[in-house]
């Protein structure tokens, strides 16, 4: 029936979709264009954990520090001369080992990722850093520290409010983190190196924002699935290399024809979606995802760290806690988050909003509901989706998206 097994290349999905497509179905024509090399590299990076660029880095003696959650201050890791790597469970096929630690009411991301950890698939990491992002992921730490031998583990206490008091608290947390990195690895992290790192990461954010700007067009040159690949890749390889590639890609995109034949412009909101294949399924029904509020999307690059601040760590604390578009775990910013979504809808001329969440995720249950109330009030078409971390139920996803798009027409 449905071609169900998703291979890591993602090609199987496309094949399945086109086999099932009849002549009238394809609404988004994918131009037969020479595949962009940077885009290819980005897409490959989303299909494995350690991509070739990262492996090269390791071969040269470089160090990689895993980060659970976008609130880990990556700049500190970069300033230490290491590569920050956002933790994913890509390629995981089972959760047997993790199921003995976690339970069936824990989200599939936490179970897959812990399982990979227990299986030794993160052995390329020189350390792992957490914040108390959510009830599921924070428990990965508790099992990891008992069961997996990793040279360096650290946990930052992330506030749940965003006032100046909390900026001050997180400033101290970041300082402690910096000092512990220095102590463990013997690398000094000077103020100057922090500023260099901040500038480097801000450069990434600027480039990524440029990419999104292109999607404001009537015919965006890049799909939502491709964009996610670009964003996820940014979290998985040496930053300078990534920035170069992205610059090259932006050049190429400037000369590319856009996708014109779509049924609707969509915005995707949610948590740690890191699998472009999910968006491919959504876009296979003819909608084009033109913007988002995701953990690997606009929230991590819409704002910059203030390069004019007087000290780097305070600048970082202020960026992560107060300035950056917030995540639902922050208690005092829900109205801002809804406003951010509304603003995106306006800027990107969005026709409909899709929210996704992993089963058992309380944070996104709440947010999908709360943002939904605002969308409903404004009469903006909206659908809420639940998913598992490893893509399944493609036929069911397709049906819902197709029906959603159909309700938006007329």
């Amino acid at each position: 029936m449905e071609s169900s097994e998703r291979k890591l290349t993602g090609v199987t999905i496309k094949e399945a979709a086109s086999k099932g497509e009849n002549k009238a179905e394809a609404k988004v024509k994918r131009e037969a264009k020479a595949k962009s090399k940077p885009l290819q590299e980005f897409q490959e990076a989303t299909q494995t954990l350690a991509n070739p660029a990262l492996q090269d880095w390791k071969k040269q003696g470089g160090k990689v520090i895993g980060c659970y959650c976008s609130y880990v201050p990556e700049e500190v890791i970069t300033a230490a001369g290491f590569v920050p790597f956002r933790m994913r469970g890509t390629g995981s096929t089972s959760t047997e080992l993790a199921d003995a630690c976690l339970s069936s009411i824990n989200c599939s991301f936490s179970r897959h990722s812990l399982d990979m950890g227990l299986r030794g698939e993160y052995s390329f990491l020189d350390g792992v850093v957490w914040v108390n992002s959510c009830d599921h992921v924070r428990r990965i730490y508790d099992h990891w520290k008992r069961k997996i031998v990793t040279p360096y583990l650290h946990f930052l206490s992330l506030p749940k409010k965003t006032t100046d008091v909390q900026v001050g608290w997180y400033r101290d947390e970041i300082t402690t983190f910096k000092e512990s990195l220095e102590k463990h690895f013997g690398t000094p992290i000077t103020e100057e190196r922090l500023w260099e790192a901040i500038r480097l990461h801000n450069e990434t954010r600027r480039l990524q924002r440029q990419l999104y700007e292109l999607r404001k067009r009537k015919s965006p040159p890049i799909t939502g699935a491709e964009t996610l690949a670009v964003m996820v890749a940014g979290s998985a390889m040496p930053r300078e290399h990534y920035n170069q590639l992205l610059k090259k890609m932006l050049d190429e995109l400037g000369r590319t024809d856009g996708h014109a034949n779509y049924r609707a412009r969509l915005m995707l909101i949610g948590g740690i979606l890191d699998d472009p294949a999910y968006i491919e399924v959504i876009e296979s029904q003819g909608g084009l995802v033109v913007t988002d509020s995701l953990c690997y999307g606009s929230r991590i690059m819409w704002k910059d760290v203030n390069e004019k601040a007087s000290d780097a760590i305070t600048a970082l604390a202020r960026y992560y806690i107060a300035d950056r578009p917030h995540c639902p775990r922050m208690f005092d910013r829900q109205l801002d988050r809804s406003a951010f979504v509304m603003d995106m809808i306006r800027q990107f001329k969005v026709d409909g909003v899709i929210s996704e969440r992993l089963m058992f995720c309380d944070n996104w249950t709440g947010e999908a509901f709360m943002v939904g109330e605002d969308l409903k009030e404004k009469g903006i078409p909206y659908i809420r989706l639940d998913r598992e971390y490893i893509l399944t139920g493609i036929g069911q996803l397709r049906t819902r998206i197709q029906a959603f798009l159909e309700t938006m027409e007329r």
Partner: protein
Amino acid sequence: MDKKEITQKGLGLERYYQEREWFNFLCQMLAQDPSETSQLSKEITEITVSRYDEIIRCAEEGKPFIMGYFCAAPEIYEALDLPWYMIMATPFLAASAPYLLEDIDAAERMGLGTDWCTACRLTLYYIESGLTPKPNALIALIHPCDAATMLHQAVYRNKRWRDVPIFAMDPPYFEDQRGIDYYAGELKRMVAFLEEHTGRKLDIDRLREICLESNKQYELWLEYAQLRRAVPCPHGWAVGGPQCFAITQVFQAGRPRGTAWMRKLVDHTEKMVKEKKGPVAKERIRYFWFDLLPFGWVFEFLPWLEEEWGAVMVMDMFGYTPYTLIDTRNEDTMLKGIAKRNLYESPMVRQARGIADYFASDITRVVKDYKIDCVIWPGHMGHKDGSASTGIMREVCRDLGVPYIHIGLDLFDKRYTTPEQCKDKISQFFTAMGLG
């Protein structure tokens, strides 16, 4: 005002009236049984009624009252002389009522989803449907879990409650002096917030009185907890643990009537221990129930454990009391003591809010002190972090040589795992482990 008027005025007191009636009725029943246990239960029921009275009166008469939590410093509410209640109390109110399941379904219809804590969903539903009285100010809880944070964001957003001033104390993740100092700072800010929105002023001497009285209550609780170590255990699920929690942290925090009740409890229990009496004729299994009681269907399960298996709940999460006394020397020491107690010693908050170590160490302590035969992690569907710690709990039990079972249930919705299914699971567990 008659009830109809009150309903029309939208004061949200219907459930409270219903519950007060029910508890009054319970008082009358208990009054007929002269046994000391029943008299203790009767008094705590009267205390419960008086708390309903207080909130109802404030709502009816437009007097200030606030919404707070047992772990967000009841000592301070009492010192400010502010009647307070918990919005999460409303789901517990419905717990023994026939409308509970309907209310849960209604919550689902609101579009709240079904895989987060039923208590939180119900709370939001009760607010949305105008079945919770609106306070002058709201102290929101943003720990120990994601659900609490989500709930209070949604409460704040709710159109009815958009005008209620809201404040939440930000919790540190780790347990150290820095965390305590930080939280004490948050407490100070909470005091300022409450003063601003209720017109009350915190008097340090009054705070000292409350803390001293509260300390007395905890000392008595420690005595009581010692007595429960006896074999046979003098009380089961029906007396003690959660009642002590209700007295010391909810209904009578720092109030002499609460202290008197604790004193009576201790006296009575000393007698029970001397006479080697307990809730069952023959105590066969001593278990540690590591959660709240299954309020939605408690009568369909816990009494059966006693009758069928001679299984006595020697200790539960809310009866566990590793509390330290508050140093009442000055404002600073008091706030820090209050911070420490509310963050690190309050039940459930203690285990769930930070790293998983307390899940392990509390089990170790309880198993040893109380001669526990088996540990039950009920696995309430809302405790995501707790169930995520199941592997750790299982291992610590293995090291202690004590059987461990993770049931997986909903403390409120008996349809999730039915009482019959739970009985089956437990029976198989007891049999397989050679217990009872």
